[in-house]
């Protein structure tokens, strides 16, 4: 789900940077206020672990395929949402810098899609309400907590991944990158991530269950202090979950319906207009007229070896003129030449 730089318009990327930056700033402030430098090594280990953990393949029973770990949910259950969010930022940054997974410009969007939902939405709206609720209290103390961990992990992973995937679609569409209709894109992305979310949730719950058995004090909200009054009741939890489900489900079915045109039009206008508006660009003006161009016109009379040669429809708004085509081929040739020369000299230097 890592977005690449190419999938984002600068305006969208900047907006996402501002959103993620605000959340990161708030987290840093909160952690500083709590004097949480103590947590720093734990956060670093957590980040490194998610990184390593995502590379381990877990066999899904009954199928040949394998699943991976959902980092945001696990880290916020272990470290709390703010610390977990910062750790996820680090994971995504290192993935982007060293493995080119994502991109520098798209980092803001990736942080939002994967870390923000996983940590803040996952923790405040799913993990904490469920862990503090009286759900499954008929199963005995341990059984109830175990059942809550499983429910919270699976629900958290599924919902945060759905939100993330939906954001990917939204950001790509707002950037005017794809011609794929909004509804079709949503219908493509959401079911895939539903399956992924289920599996990631299962793996995450397995890890958290193990931690619960071995060291329950490591988990957030699992052993609430005695005498704590404001517990979430079952009613609140169900209400919150129902609202989320209604929002997500309602939103998705509306968007994925067979006639998404109305909404699409309202959101984006037509593709061309939306694009030009986003980019603040006039596509017709691509390539500015300049004195140099006029001077070149004089020279070209002498150098042009293909005079009066034109391809059909070459004056289309797409702007593919023959000269552009030939020019880019020449530049591409020059680029390849530089590569070859560089390789040649490098070998000689050795």
């Amino acid at each position, binding site marked *: 789900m890592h977005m690449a730089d190419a999938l984002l318009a600068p305006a969208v990327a900047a907006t996402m940077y501002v959103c993620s930056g605000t959340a990161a700033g708030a987290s840093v402030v909160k952690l500083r206020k709590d004097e949480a430098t103590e947590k720093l090594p734990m956060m670093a280990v957590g980040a490194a672990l998610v990184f390593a953990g995502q590379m381990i393949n877990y066999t899904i029973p009954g199928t040949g395929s394998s699943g991976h770990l959902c980092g945001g949910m696990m880290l916020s259950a272990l470290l709390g949402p703010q610390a977990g969010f910062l750790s996820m930022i680090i994971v995504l940054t290192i993935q982007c*810098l060293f493995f080119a997974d994502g991109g520098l410009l798209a980092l803001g969007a990736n942080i939002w899609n994967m870390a923000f939902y996983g940590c803040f939405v996952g923790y405040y709206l799913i993990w904490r309400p469920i862990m503090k609720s009286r759900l499954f209290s008929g199963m005995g103390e341990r059984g109830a907590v175990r059942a809550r961990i499983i429910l919270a992990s699976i629900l958290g992973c599924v919902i945060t991944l759905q939100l993330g995937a939906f954001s990917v679609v939204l950001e790509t569409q707002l950037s005017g990158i794809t011609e794929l209709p909004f509804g079709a894109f949503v219908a493509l992305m959401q079911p895939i991530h539903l399956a992924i979310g289920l599996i990631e949730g299962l793996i995450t719950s397995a890890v958290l269950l193990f931690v619960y058995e071995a060291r329950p004090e490591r988990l957030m909200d699992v052993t609430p202090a005695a005498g704590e009054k404001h517990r979430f009741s079952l009613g609140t939890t169900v209400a919150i979950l129902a609202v989320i489900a209604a929002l997500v489900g309602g939103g998705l079915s509306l968007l994925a319906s067979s006639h998404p045109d109305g909404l699409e039009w309202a959101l984006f206008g037509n593709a061309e207009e939306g694009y030009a508006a986003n980019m603040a660009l006039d596509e017709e003006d691509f390539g500015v007229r300049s004195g140099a161009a006029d001077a070149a016109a004089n020279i070209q009379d002498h150098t042009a070896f293909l005079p009066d040669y034109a391809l059909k429809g070459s004056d*289309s708004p797409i702007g593919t003129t023959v000269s552009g085509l030939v020019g880019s081929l020449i530049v591409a040739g020059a680029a390849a030449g530089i590569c070859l020369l560089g390789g040649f000299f490098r070998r000689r230097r050795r």
Partner: protein
Amino acid sequence: MERLDRALGEFRQMEELAVSDSPIHRLHPLAKFLTTVLYILIVVSYPKYALRAMPVMALFPILLYQIARIPLSLCFYRLRYILPLVCAVGLFNPFFDRTPAFQVGALTVTGGMISFLTLLCKGVLCLTASFLLVATTRFDALCAALRKLHVPSLLTNLLLLTYRYITVLMEEASAMTTAYHLRAPGQKGIHISAWGSFLGQLLLRSMDRAEDLFRAMQLRGWHGHFHYVDLPSFTARDAAYVCGGAALLALVRLVDIAGLVGSLLVR
């Protein structure tokens, strides 16, 4: 496990590249960071049909890779991460955007094909730029540069610590998976019965170790701040690199170089 070992190998390769020496390596990390961000911004700011601008933009990384003496082929391996989503997004353009652009023989090239190719080129170019940044800059220097840009010290500290821990933990996880597979031959991944304990063990063990480590650090007088690598001062050369780069990029963005070169030959 293959995947972990490969990632470890890539990590070490980047570190080795970053400590070698070239004019690009000697530049101030901040200068490199700023130009990289500017380059990526310019690349993605091109309209979706601007395929002809891509070879011109490719000249920048290609030249810099030669100066930095890094084979361009190294970074193409990393494309496997970003290409799937880029392709998934762009693949439908040729089907939905059928505006004919021009014709080559019997083949009508449509706007969708051009926008798809442009998108792919943009993806590759952005990747080459950020790869070059990391391949020519030591990671601690990069963190120091980020600190100069007023990124909170909590984040840069975390970045540095995580960077140190990652290789340790990946080696550990790699050893664990190897051991697991030796005991469970012919099994593809981790069986469901071991899903929790496998990573959970590693998690608890390393968290305990991190806490001990932290106490040891505190006893030795650590108070939450790292002393970063001594950054060289931002010299006139670095300023020239940034300004020259920005001017060249602006020129290329505003003037249709490919069109000009072409118009010398075709009228």
